[in-house]
């Protein structure tokens, strides 16, 4: 359990470090600033999602997570990876920011935690699952914040 907490803290530190490493260029136009924030958010969500996927599979292999719940979580992770990539591809396209922005916000809506996992943050009997539930909750909170930063 302690090892898992340490790993979760280390993963979070790596993500924060990666976010800081992509330093915001100076003298950007407002549209460039918005697109930079969007790219930063999408990269962070992709990293968080990869971490959640890895943890879910490891917990399943360790016998701490049922196949049914693993399938639910991985289904969500796949949905996030697909929607995030669609948004990344859109961001890299030459389409003007004015028409691109509303589509990106719609993609971010697809990244929100589904109702099937709504109770996953409730008190969990198996303490090994707590870091995973926190990670999923943190990603959802981050997606909401990213939407606000892009407006």
């Amino acid at each position, binding site marked *: 359990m302690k090892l898992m907490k340490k790993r979760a803290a280390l993963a979070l530190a790596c993500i924060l470090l*990666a976010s800081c490493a*992509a*330093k*915001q*260029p*100076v*003298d*950007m136009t407002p549209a*460039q600033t918005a*697109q*930079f924030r969007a*790219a*930063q958010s*999408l*990269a962070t*969500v*992709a*990293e968080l*999602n*990869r971490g959640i*996927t*890895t943890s879910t*599979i490891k917990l*399943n292999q360790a016998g701490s997570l049922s*196949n049914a719940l*693993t*399938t639910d979580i*991985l289904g969500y*992770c*796949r949905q*996030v*990876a*697909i929607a*995030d*990539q669609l948004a*990344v591809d859109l*961001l*890299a396209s030459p389409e003007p920011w004015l028409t691109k922005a509303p589509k990106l916000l719609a993609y971010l809506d697809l990244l929100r935690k589904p109702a099937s996992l709504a109770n996953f943050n409730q008190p969990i009997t198996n303490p090994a699952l707590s870091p995973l539930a926190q990670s999923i909750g943190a990603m959802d909170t981050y997606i909401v914040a990213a939407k606000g930063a892009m407006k």
Partner: protein
Amino acid sequence: MNAFIILITKGAELVATLTPVASGLAASIKALLESSGEYTVVMKQLTDAATDANAETQQMIDEWMAEQA
């Protein structure tokens, strides 16, 4: 001879007037190119990082699903 001196003097004045403008313009263009270059590089780094992470995530999920089948 006087006309030649006046021409040289006026030419020198013109160069002196234009030089700060030209150097200022060159500096602005250089800054613009540098900032747009930096912007492009950073955007590519971020989109590449996201693409790699998304591809790896989908691959991990596919492998786990294949093991279950």
